[in-house]
C-alpha cells in the first residue's frame, strides 16, 4: 500500500464515521421536521424508500411542508419554552460565573504544590454521574429535605421553603452540574498569567482592585468566554435537570422535545423543535469555536 493510500485510509475511517453518525443524522432531523405525523412505524410521512424511483420521490417531496414550523409559532407553549430555556441558561451561567470566578482565582493563587490537588478536586465530580449529582439535590431541596431541616434547626425559618419543583431548584442544579466546566477554563487562563504583571501595575500606581480590573480581568476574558459557553450551550438544551428538579411549569426546550418525542410520539414536531434549538445555538457555538481555535493557535505557536 502506497503512502497516498495509507493517508487516504487514515483520514477516511474517522471522517466517514462522523459523516454517517453525526452529520447525516442532522439532515434526517431536518428532513423529518418537514414531514407529517402518522400513526405507524415510523410515525411520520412520507417515508422515502431507495426502491421508490424518481417519480415517486418527487411526489413524496411535494408532501413535505412547513406545517410543523407553523404549528410551533401558533402554539405559544413552544415560543415560551425557547424563551424560558434561554433565560434559565443565561441566569445559571451568570450564577456559575459569580461562584466559579472567585473559586478559580483562589485556586490559581494557591501555593503551587496545592494546585494539582485542587484541580483534581474540581474534575472529580465531573467524572461522577450527572444523574447522581442531580439526584443528590432532590434529597436536599425537598420540603422535608435536609436544607429545610437545617434552616429550621437554625431558626431562620418557621415554615419549610418550597424550593424543589421551582426554577430556583433548576438554577441550583445547572450551576452545580456545570461548575467544573466554568472553573477549569477560568483557572487555566488565570494560572497562566504572569504574577509580575500585577506587580508592575501596582508599581505603576494601581490599587490592588484597579490592578484586578485593568489587568487580571481582561487577560482572563478568553477563559470567561470559554467557561460561559461551556455552561450556556448545554444548559439551553438541558433535559434531566428541569425534569427532576423543576416544576411542571418549568418550561425548557429539551424537556419539550422529550415530551413531544416520548409521550406524544410526534416525531416531526420534535424534529422541528430540535432544528430550531440548533439554529438558536449556532451563534454561541460559533463564538466558542472561534475562541477555541484562537487559543489552540496561540498554544501551538
Amino acid at each position, binding site marked *: 500500500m502506497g*503512502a497516498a493510500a*495509507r493517508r487516504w485510509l*487514515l*483520514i477516511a*475511517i*474517522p*471522517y466517514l*464515521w*462522523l*459523516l454517517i*453518525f*453525526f*452529520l447525516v*443524522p442532522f439532515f*434526517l*432531523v431536518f428532513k*423529518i421536521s418537514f414531514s407529517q405525523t402518522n400513526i405507524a412505524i*415510523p410515525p411520520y410521512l412520507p417515508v422515502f424508500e431507495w426502491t421508490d424511483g424518481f417519480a415517486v420521490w418527487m411526489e413524496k417531496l411535494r408532501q413535505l411542508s412547513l406545517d410543523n414550523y407553523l404549528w410551533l409559532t401558533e402554539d405559544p407553549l413552544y415560543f415560551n419554552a425557547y424563551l424560558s430555556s434561554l433565560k434559565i441558561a443565561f441566569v445559571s451561567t451568570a450564577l456559575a460565573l459569580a*461562584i466559579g470566578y472567585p473559586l478559580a*482565582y*483562589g485556586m490559581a*493563587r*494557591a501555593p503551587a504544590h496545592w494546585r494539582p490537588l*485542587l484541580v483534581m*478536586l474540581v474534575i472529580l*465530580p465531573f*467524572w*461522577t*454521574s*450527572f*444523574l*447522581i449529582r442531580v*439526584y*443528590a*439535590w*432532590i*434529597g*436536599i431541596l*425537598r420540603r422535608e429535605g*435536609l436544607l429545610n431541616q437545617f434552616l429550621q434547626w437554625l431558626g431562620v425559618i418557621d415554615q419549610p421553603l418550597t424550593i424543589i419543583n421551582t426554577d430556583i431548584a433548576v438554577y441550583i442544579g445547572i450551576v452545580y452540574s456545570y*461548575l*467544573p466546566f466554568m472553573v477549569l477554563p477560568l483557572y487555566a487562563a488565570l494560572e497562566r498569567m504572569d*504574577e509580575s504583571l500585577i506587580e508592575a501595575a501596582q508599581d505603576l500606581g494601581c490599587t490592588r482592585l484597579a490592578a484586578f480590573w485593568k489587568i487580571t480581568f481582561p487577560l482572563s476574558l478568553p477563559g470567561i468566554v470559554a467557561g460561559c459557553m*461551556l455552561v450556556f*450551550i448545554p444548559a*439551553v*438544551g438541558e*433535559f434531566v435537570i428541569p425534569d427532576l428538579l423543576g416544576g411542571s411549569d418549568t418550561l425548557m426546550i*429539551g424537556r419539550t422535545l*422529550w415530551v413531544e418525542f416520548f409521550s406524544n410520539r410526534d416525531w416531526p414536531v*420534535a*424534529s422541528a423543535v*430540535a432544528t430550531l*434549538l*440548533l439554529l438558536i*445555538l449556532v451563534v454561541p*457555538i460559533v463564538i466558542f*469555536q472561534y475562541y477555541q481555535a484562537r487559543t*489552540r493557535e496561540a*498554544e501551538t505557536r
Partner: protein
Amino acid sequence: MNRHWSGFNIVSVVVGFAFLYIPILLLIIYSFNESRLVTVWAGFSTRWYGEMLRNQALLDAAWVTLRVALVSATAATLLGTLAAVVLVRVTRFRGRLLFSGMVFAPLVMPEVITGLSLLLLFIAMNLDRTIFTVMLAHTTFSMCFVAVVVQSRLVTFDRSLEEAAQDLGCTPLKAFLTVTLPVIAPAVIAGWMLAFTLSLDDLVIASFTSGSGATTLPMRIYSQVRLGVTPEINAVCTVLIALVTTAVIIASVINKRSMVQRERAEQLARAG
C-alpha cells in the same frame, strides 16, 4: 506566591468546594440510613446495599451498562485517536474544516439533539434498537472527547522522535506504533477512561437509542427516581461514585508518581 493566598481567596476556595462536595457527601451518608425515608436519619445500616444486590432489574441494567461502556470506550479510543492524528498531522486535505467541525461540535451539542438525530438514523437504516445501537451512539459522541484529549498531547509531541525512528529503519506505521503510541499512551488511556465514564453516565442518548432489553443503569435509576426517592438509589449511586473515584485517584496517583520520579531523575542528571 504565598502572600497572595489571602483570606478572601481561601474563603472562596473553601465555599466553592463545600458547594461541590456537600451534596455528594450527604448522598453517601444517607445511603447508610436505616429508615426508608431518605431524609430522616434513623441509625446506621447497610440494608439498602443488600436490597440493591437483590434487585435483579438493577443488576441487569448494570451489566448492560458495563458492556456498553467497555465496547464503546474501546471503539471510541481507536476512532478518536485516529481523528486526533488526522487533526494534528494531516494539515491539508479537502474537507478538513468540516472534519474539525464534526470533531468539536459534539462536545457542546445538546444531548437531546444528538440522541434524536441518531435514533432517526437508526430508523432510516432499518436498524433495530438494541444494545448495539447504544454502543454505536456512545462511540460516536465519546470519540470526539477522546480526539480532543489525544490531540492536545499530540500537539506537543516532538515529531523528530518519529523521524528518528524512520531514519533508523522503521516504516511510518511502525514508527507510530513503536515510538509515538507508547509516548502518548497516558493521554490515550485518559481518553479511554473519559469515554468509559461518559458512557457509564449517559441517560439521554441511551434513552433515545436503546430498545427493549437494553435498559442501561442510568435509565433504570432515572425511572426509579421518578417514582420516588429511596435509600436504595443512594446505595447504587454510592457504589458508582466509589468505583469511579477510586479509578480516577489511582490513575492520577500513578501519573503523579511517574512525574515525581521523572523530576527527581532529571535533577540527578543535572547534578551528575
